[in-house]
């Protein structure tokens, strides 16, 4: 009965209710679209960055992160890889041997990061082969070949087919030196990586460093929207945490996490303002709906309706109006996000070039994460409940005789 009464009450002034519903609808639609695009851009940015660097998660020998030395490497373990790949959230593994060396070409030298990689895994997971702008990708996992970043090539004045000398320190203080043929030049998204990185097939790198079958890290790729922390916990439960440490990209690249957090705060403020505006609209409607029925409330209390039941009816009215706007907003938002995922907006002109220079696809990504839709709906419903507190409180303090005579 109370549900029916609340429903009938909100249609006493249908035009006013529709205006309020429309304001909730537009706010939810805007909030969903806005969150979807910002989350989509972040997710894509994270995916781009982590796939060329850390992976979403990384496994090291315990203590490696505090002292990043080849001496803290660990032996590649088939069983470990199999255990990790058994997790449905894990989409790929990238074994790496990461060291530092001095590179030299002609009369130029530069300190570089040498990444020993499995060419097949990297090709599959981050399409590293597509970043080759000159020359070719690795032909095998043991070729005496290297790929260098375009920035480094420029600084060393080296070209494809030139030979680079690398001198560094190997496993257990052995010396690591060799000559390597540059088979390709890469253009990577991160300018820092572009100017400092040399990729080398994993087996070649292990041989160079006297670290047969050893890795410094095993990078783990996840689905874009997988929950990082729960995935980390799941992985920790299947490995020997006395021997290995698992780190998230947030731990390894805190500056990127902080940038996203800071940038998100601005977005939260915009969405907050949006909700404050609709709150005023909804509050105004609730107040009008309450005060214009003051006399009726007095009568209802007189005939035996308890005040808390009246406050409950007002709460139901507020939730019904908001829920209608929310459902329409979620429906509209789903449609927009779906359309823009199917037919993404592509950048053109100089913006496109900037994106491509940074190694990102020149596309505006939208996130279809269900949490965005649920959170926006919950926020509006919580707001509606909070806003009905004041009229509810007024009803609880109502004196029937004053209300009847009002």
């Amino acid at each position, binding site marked *: 009965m109370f549900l029916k009464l609340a429903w009938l009450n909100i249609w006493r002034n249908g035009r006013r209710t529709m205006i309020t519903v429309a304001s909730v609808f537009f706010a939810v639609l805007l909030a969903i679209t806005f969150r979807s695009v910002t989350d989509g851009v972040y997710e894509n940015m994270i995916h781009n960055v982590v796939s060329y660097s850390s992976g979403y998660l990384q496994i090291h020998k315990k203590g490696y992160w505090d002292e990043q030395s080849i001496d803290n490497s660990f032996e590649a373990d088939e069983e470990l890889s199999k255990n990790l790949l058994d997790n449905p959230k894990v989409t790929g593994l990238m074994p790496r041997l990461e060291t530092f060396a001095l590179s030299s070409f002609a009369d130029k030298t530069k300190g570089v990061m040498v990444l020993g990689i499995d060419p097949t895994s990297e090709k599959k997971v981050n399409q590293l082969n597509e970043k080759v702008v000159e020359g070719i990708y690795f032909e095998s996992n043991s070729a005496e070949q290297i790929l260098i970043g375009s920035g480094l090539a420029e600084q060393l004045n080296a070209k494809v087919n030139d030979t680079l000398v690398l001198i560094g320190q190997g496993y257990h203080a052995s010396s690591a030196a060799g000559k390597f043929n540059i088979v390709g030049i890469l253009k990577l998204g991160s300018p820092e990586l572009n100017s400092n990185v040399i990729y080398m097939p994993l087996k070649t790198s292990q041989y160079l460093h006297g670290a047969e079958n050893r890795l410094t890290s095993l990078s783990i790729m996840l689905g874009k929207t997988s929950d990082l922390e729960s995935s980390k916990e799941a992985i920790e439960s299947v490995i020997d945490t006395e021997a290995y440490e698992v780190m998230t990209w947030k731990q390894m690249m805190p500056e990127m996490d902080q940038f996203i957090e800071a940038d998100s705060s601005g977005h939260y403020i915009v969405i907050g303002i949006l909700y404050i505006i609709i709150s005023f609209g909804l509050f105004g409607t609730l107040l009008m709906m309450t005060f214009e029925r003051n006399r*009726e409330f007095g*009568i209802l209390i007189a005939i035996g309706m308890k*005040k808390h039941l009246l406050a409950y009816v007002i709460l139901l009215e507020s939730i019904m109006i908001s829920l209608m706007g929310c459902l329409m907003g979620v429906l509209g938002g789903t449609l927009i996000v779906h359309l823009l995922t199917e037919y993404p907006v592509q950048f053109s002109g100089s913006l496109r070039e900037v994106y491509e220079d940074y190694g990102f696809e020149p596309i505006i990504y939208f996130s279809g994460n269900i949490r965005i839709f649920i959170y926006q709906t919950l926020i509006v419903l919580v707001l509606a409940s909070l806003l009905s507190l004041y009229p509810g409180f007024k009803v609880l303090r109502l004196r029937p005789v004053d209300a009847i005579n009002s």
Partner: protein
Amino acid sequence: MGKTIIDAHNVSKTYKETAVPVRALQDVHLHIEEGEFVALVGPSGSGKSTLLNMIGGLDEPTSGTVYVDGVEITKLPENKLIDFRLQNIGFVFQSFNLIPVLTSRENIGFVLQLQKVSKKDREKRVLELLREVDLEEKIDSRPGELSGGQQQRVAVARALASKPKIILADEPTANLDSKSASNLLDIMAKLNKEEKITFLFSTHDQRVIEKARRVITLVDGKVDSDVNQKPT
């Protein structure tokens, strides 16, 4: 002598919200027995509605006590008082005051629902009541689709829904034409006679006064006269 249903002792009410305090009731004593049909008369501002509000527990006296069916309602906490009204007192107001979005069935059934009466029993009682006020055919009509007289009859049916011992009616015929007023009075008199429901109504309407068996006149917040008469 019948059972006392309303007993007011030294009831006074002073409104202090105004610049000059207004004494709406001054030491009113009132004693009404079960099954009486009483008219409360007097000029505007004499305290008729205030006294009805005190008896109905809608307002508290500044001093004095009110007993209804042996319960001192002036001492009841709010929720118990609302429950007491629901079970014992029916109200009929001057301007009908039905819930405009509900049908006759729902307006009457609403009170029964507050009493947690089952759906089946509710339906039965609603039909019974609408039959009593001769409005069976308007069961699914909303107040806006009814005439003033019909709305007031639905309001009476709503007041009767909870099987109250008392019905308090504040100027029930004030907004009705003479035919509707007469019709309503006949229904009220019949209910009083057949179901022994006590009626106390404030009125200016001579037709209503003539139907009453007891007429209490208030002047300046005091009982001026209390007369038993033979109704016409």
